[in-house]
Every structure is written in structure tokens, then in C-alpha cells.
């Protein structure tokens, strides 16, 4: 499949309270596996998906943060994060499992405008 469209995956949910966070990362990995490089934007509660040192072994599910650490192996090197949401939870980029690019609201609005399709999880 040749890449013809710019796709933004926008995820807004916390990692373990529902299944949408996982659906988002699965969609990202699938897109990468088919050589469609999607942009990934973590907004609102989704910043909690990125926290490092997650250990979900005792709750019977996979550790979401560790799966996200594999994104560079799928050549997804640019991960964008809602700066305001990170701040609201008292977190900084040092608390996160992977390198991210922090965006303010105007930059996020620009991202939304710059893509052909937005998949919203």
C-alpha cells in the first residue's frame, strides 16, 4: 500500500479503565506494519498511557507503557503530547516511558488541521 493520506491517531483515554487506549496503540502498530506512518497524539487522560515503570502483571493485562516503548521499532519516532494535560497531572516528559514532543493548544489545533484523516480513540 502506498502512503497517500496523512493519518492522525488521536487518543484521549487512560490506559486501563477501558479498551480504547489499547485499540489506539494496536491501530498505530498495524498502520506502521503496513508502512503507513501515522502521527500519534496523546491528549487529556491519554498522557497517563505514557507513564514509565507501569507494571500491570498483577492486574492480568499487558503493561501499556511497555507496549508503547516498542513504537520506535515500528519506526514511529514522533509522538506528540498535550502539554496542558501533562501539567494538570503534575507530570513532566521525564516521567514518560518514551521521548515525546510537547504541544500547546495552537500546535494541536494545527495538527488536527494538517491531517487528511483523524482516527479518534
Amino acid at each position, binding site marked *: 500500500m502506498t502512503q497517500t493520506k496523512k493519518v492522525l491517531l*488521536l487518543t*484521549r483515554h487512560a490506559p486501563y479503565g477501558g479498551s480504547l487506549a489499547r485499540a489506539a496503540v494496536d491501530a498505530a502498530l498495524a498502520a506502521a506494519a503496513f508502512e503507513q506512518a501515522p502521527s500519534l497524539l496523546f491528549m*487529556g487522560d491519554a498522557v497517563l498511557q505514557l507513564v514509565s515503570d507501569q507494571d500491570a502483571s498483577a492486574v492480568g493485562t499487558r503493561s501499556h507503557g511497555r507496549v508503547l516503548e516498542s513504537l520506535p521499532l515500528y519506526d514511529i519516532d514522533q509522538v506528540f503530547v498535550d502539554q496542558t494535560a501533562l501539567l494538570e497531572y503534575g507530570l513532566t516528559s521525564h516521567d514518560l516511558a518514551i521521548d515525546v514532543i510537547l504541544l500547546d*493548544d495552537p500546535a494541536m*489545533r494545527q495538527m*488536527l*488541521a494538517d491531517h*487528511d484523516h*483523524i482516527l*479518534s480513540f
Partner: protein
Amino acid sequence: MPLHTLNATPNQSAFAQCLRMLGPQDALLLLGDGVYGAIKDTEAAKALQNSGAELYILEPDARASGLEKRLAECFKPLDYDGFVELSERFPSQQAWY
């Protein structure tokens, strides 16, 4: 410039996030629980209006709410044909729910 569809009440985080991302060149369609953001003289409706976006409300969902007569006039009622027409005009959609 995206078409935003909002399916969350003003008390849900999706509402605030939508508001942060809504710009004057965008359109907003309220549907499902989103229709409660259009009640006249509420902070929510005023905030949506202040975004400068084109404002629409899905008519069947507004009718279900029982509040149709209390909705601010700046939200233009649309049926599904109108919804599709909006999607033709705006190249992408962002769904808030």
C-alpha cells in the same frame, strides 16, 4: 479544517477538550449527549459560540432531549442528509465522545 462531532455533556472531559481545539474555521455538530451543550444562556453554549466555529445540532437527537425549545438559535438543526453534506465540505472529522 476539521468537522468536530461532539457526543458528550458539558460536564465531561471530551467537552472541554473539544472546546480547546475548536477554531473559527472549523464546524461543530452536536449529537447524542452533546446536544446538552446547546441550552440557551448556559456557560457551555456561550463558550461554544465564542469559538467562532459554525455550529450545528443533530435534529433527531435534539428532539429526544425534550429541550428543543430551549436551545440557542445559533445551533442550526441538521438531519442526516445535512450531516453528510457537512462531511463533504470539511475534509476531516474529529469525533469527541
